[in-house]
């Protein structure tokens, strides 16, 4: 983990209100694992804002973000060459279990850390699919990055709230149906990121499949990102845990 200054190499609009930014920094590119996040200082704000590592290509590191409030709004106005003050990589990453069948579950912007995970998982691909991606969104314009997952060997199942594409309803409902109706060779393992309700529903599904493990990346308002201010805790079965250091990735069974 380091404090560093980098320059924005590229920032592009991926969809309405969604941007992707990258910079070159070998240390972060080499050290970071899927699930790690960067704590970014944005001008005219006070606290840093956390963003998952979305993808690493060579020495280039990407973050993908949605405009939600002041900080992300300002960040979306950054240009090529803008200076970025970054702290990272931070947090506890996903644990990759090689002999399991990866099932990625994304809700909306939860897609962000899962692409980097997909990149790593793709290295272990033998034959057939690397894994499955269940992607739930409100509206179809949020269905981003799908071609990148396809390239990495993922089979994609889509759920939209309005039914405009794919399954109409919750992504966890779709997942449960598939789990019931499909034969999966290896033991599935779930990796998720998305709204709390979605992770809660995953927890309910996992209760029906006791041998299946699931991990999810959590969000919380955050202070230092280093575990010192105790600001970003979530309630788990074993008390409050800091998203920045004991997370952001938690075993779903430890929380729900």
């Amino acid at each position, binding site marked *: *983990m*380091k*404090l560093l200054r980098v320059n924005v190499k590229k920032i592009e609009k991926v969809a309405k209100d969604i941007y992707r930014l990258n910079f070159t920094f070998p240390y972060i590119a080499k050290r970071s694992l899927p699930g790690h996040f960067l704590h970014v*200082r944005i001008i005219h*704000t*006070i*606290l*840093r804002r956390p963003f998952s590592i979305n993808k690493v290509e060579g020495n280039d590191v990407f973050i993908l973000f949605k405009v939600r409030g002041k900080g992300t709004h300002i960040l979306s106005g950054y240009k090529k060459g803008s200076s970025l003050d970054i702290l990272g990589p931070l947090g506890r990453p996903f644990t990759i279990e090689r002999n399991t069948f990866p099932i990625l579950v994304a809700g909306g912007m939860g897609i962000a850390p899962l692409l980097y995970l997909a990149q790593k998982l793709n290295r272990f691909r033998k034959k057939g699919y690397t894994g499955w991606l269940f992607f739930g969104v409100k509206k179809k314009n949020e269905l981003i990055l799908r071609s990148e997952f396809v390239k990495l060997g993922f089979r994609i199942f889509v759920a939209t709230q309005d039914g405009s594409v794919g399954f109409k309803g919750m992504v966890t409902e779709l997942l449960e149906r598939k789990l019931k109706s499909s034969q999966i060779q290896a033991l599935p393992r779930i990796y998720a990121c998305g709204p709390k309700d979605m992770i809660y529903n995953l927890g309910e599904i996992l209760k029906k499949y006791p041998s299946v493990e699931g991990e999810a990346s959590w969000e*919380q*308002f*955050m*202070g*230092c990102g*280093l*575990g*010192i*201010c*105790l*600001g*970003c*805790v*979530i*309630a788990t079965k074993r*008390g*409050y845990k800091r998203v920045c250091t004991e997370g952001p990735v938690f075993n779903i069974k430890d929380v729900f």
Partner: protein
Amino acid sequence: MNLGVKIGKLQLKYPIVTASGTFGFGEELSSLVDFSSLGALVTKTITLKSRRGNPPPRIREVECGVLNSIGLDNPGVEGFLKNKLPKIKKLGVPFIVSVGGYSPSEYVEVVKVLDRVKGIKAIEINLSCPNLRQKKMFSQSARLTFKITDSLRRITKKTLIVKLTGEVEDIRKIAKSAEYGGADALSLVNTFFAMGVDVDTKKPFLGRVYGGYSGKGIKPLSLYRVWECAKVVKIPIIGGGGIDNYRDAIEFFLVGAKVISLGTINLVNPNAAKSILNGIIKYMQKNKIKDINELVGGLVV
């Protein structure tokens, strides 16, 4: 040039400390921070028993500062001595242990334990945490401020710093009570009671509904309170609240703080002390000030 100051028996190389709760126990930052720019670090407030703290969300940025309701989440004095103290000692920087409590007797019990520990030289008594169940803080009462300080003074010769809230009718009375009680120094201010609301969900920002406000927005308030106290007490004052650059720091020295404390800025840049110290040094060179003590209370009115 002299930047050294003395707080009770504690000699500080530089007049900068970290504010409790914004620097953990220091050791968590050892790979990131250059401790050599710090006069001392102040630990997170510890209590007799470990405490789980307040429900989340606990921290949220607002327009001109930060709201927090951490609520004294800490490992307790035993956990501190066992797991934290050995690591703090290795950092090679002086440290001050912050102590909190829910009752006057809890302070006594904790300080009794700390008094027996050789490596601990200084204790900050947090009489101003706004996140406890009874909304009233001990340092809102001159009587309780005196009573607690006095009872602690009787059981320890270690340097005692009393940390006050700024939310009182007349802070001078409270400051004097702490001085009469035998405090070696005052630390002010702590956060101010505050809240925020998300109008879309109609929910408060903080899980606890209200919390403490820190950062830039409180700087003028803290500065005024330091100035008020500096006029009426002889003991040194550790002043802070909203400092994030060297000019802020100089303001506090000028109104009478002997040491400045950095809080919220540590959450953003844990190395802030370094750049602020460099700024102070440059300011002193430019203004031909040889000793930081010349700057203290140098306000021209």
